[in-house]
């Protein structure tokens, strides 16, 4: 058997290459496009720019204020929907996050073409920001939105089932709720190739 490794050509931008990449991409879009998730996460709206009295001749004060607003709008840009279970570095402001990842955990006992896959979602909230204007704890409200989006959905291929939903203390400053959704999915890299590796060539 020869394996033509040098001739490998991949389109790394194609999300469908790998089911984990595909599902995480779908989840990321799903969370970002939800109209309420970012609001409950406390994603700050950028400040509107100040108006110049004379558009062609703004004063120094007006330009200074405009620059401060632009800097502020840059500063508040944070990735609060994170596609892995780790916050990078020091979070110096009070921020909340939804983190998620996908893991495969075993194949089916009778049919190893099917595997059990888990989607782990953590809603991480800073202790100073636990209260929402609704009087509902922020972790619970985020939990509701995530479950509303994912529970029993077929958007990721097979049906997603919520298996676990528990509170979790991360450290002195953060609390979270951690959800685990299970999905049974084919254990295949490429559905057209089935249980074969495409680089295995049986030419001699």
């Amino acid at each position, binding site marked *: 058997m020869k394996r033509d490794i040098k001739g490998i050509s991949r389109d790394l931008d194609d999300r469908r290459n790998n089911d984990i990449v595909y599902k995480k991409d779908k989840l990321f879009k799903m969370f970002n496009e939800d*109209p*309420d998730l970012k*609001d409950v996460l406390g994603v*700050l*709206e*950028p*400040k*509107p*720019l*100040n*108006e110049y009295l004379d558009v062609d001749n703004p004063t120094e004060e007006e330009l200074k*204020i405009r620059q401060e607003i632009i800097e502020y709008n840059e500063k*508040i840009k944070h990735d609060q929907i994170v596609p892995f*279970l*780790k*916050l990078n*570095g*020091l*979070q*110096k*402001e*009070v921020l909340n996050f939804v*983190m998620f990842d996908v893991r495969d955990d075993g194949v089916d006992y009778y049919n190893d073409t099917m595997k059990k896959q888990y989607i782990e979602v*953590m809603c*991480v909230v*800073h202790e*100073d*920001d636990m*209260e929402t*204007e*609704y*009087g509902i704890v922020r972790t619970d409200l985020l939990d509701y939105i995530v479950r509303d989006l994912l529970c029993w959905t077929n958007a990721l291929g097979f049906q997603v089932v919520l298996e676990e939903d528990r509170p979790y203390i*991360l*450290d*002195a*400053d*953060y609390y*979270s709720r951690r959800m685990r959704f299970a999905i049974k999915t084919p254990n295949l890299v490429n559905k057209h190739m089935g249980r074969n590796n495409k680089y295995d060539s049986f030419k001699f």
Partner: protein
Amino acid sequence: MITLDMYQSMLNVKGKNLSQVRQYNSAMVMNTTFIGDIGYKRVYILDKNEGWRYEDAKYSKHATPSILKDAVDYYLQFRPRIHYPVGTYVFIPNDEDYEIGFEDYEPTDPFKDENFDVNKLWMIVGKNDANEFVRYNIIKCNWNFRWIARINGENKIFNIWGSVRNANSYTSGVWDADYSTALDNVTNAWIPDTYLLYEDDLYNYNLCDSRYLRHEHRFMLTHNKLDPKVYTVTKVQDLVPQGIIKLTLKQDELDEVRDNVDLMLCNYYNGSGEIVTKQESHIDDTARSYLWSAIVDEDGILQRNRTQDKVLHIAKISYFNVEFFLKNKLQDLNAEWRIDYNGESDLSDEEIEHLCNLLVMRQIDKTTISIKPAKTNKLIGEKFILSVQDSNGDYASSVELEVQK
């Protein structure tokens, strides 16, 4: 002729035994030569009974600096038999001039005086119980601690001068947990126990009661307004030495919603962006204020809404701007906003508070705010009053708003 009896009578005046006589004589010498010493300073000190007064003192420091501590020991010695409690504020002239800045008068509140110089403000932190010529340890006050505390149901701003000290913190400054990284830094602070020292007289001297500084209170200890450093009180030791409260402070994050960086006050706003302290109002008839609604155009620029919109929509942001005029001249003032319920009177206080909390207010700049009603149908049809005034209460305006879908 001096007789033995005369000599004995003289000695009896000065003391019951020879030791006391010698102490009396040496105190007399100290008193007489006091202002001749090179370390002599005329200090301004706060006495419990007499208020601020001038006092003679000798200023000295430990000759050899210690690398084990964060400061050299400084001492103050008063005339014989003159004592002040630990925790007392004292102004001491430095090498720049012989006086403390208000030598021609005696201000009753030197902290608010225009000649106040923090570089001359010290605090007594220890007493050396020597046999004679008692010396006091003093440290320089280097920070004005400001915080908000609740008294009788009202939030008030407190401030007290004290000293930020170094604390041994054998960490890198951050701590890595399983999923996150947190700040891990401590520092110390010493402040006087004002109620122990002055009791109710502290209000006569315009001091704040330091007993209202408790665990979880937060300060901004920083000169950097671009990246302010915030600390939380985690330990309060007020027993020993009597008169000084020692605080341990752990670094915390800035809360962009609740903390006011311009005023260097933490927890100035509540979660909805409203100022938590009560503002006194006294409307001035010559002052005018105009409250406008504003919209953001397609270029992202905020512009006044000429149609004066009085409607809020759920889950949508509305902007409001105020202008303060005095005799037709635009004033540069900070606006303070407030939302009150103006609907059915048969709702309970908790229900009204809940409805008001559903309107999330955010300060955009000195005179502009945004309001975003929460995404709930409960708000549809409800009416609120949005009011604004300046920090002195000279200007005031209000408008009724109704929430629609």
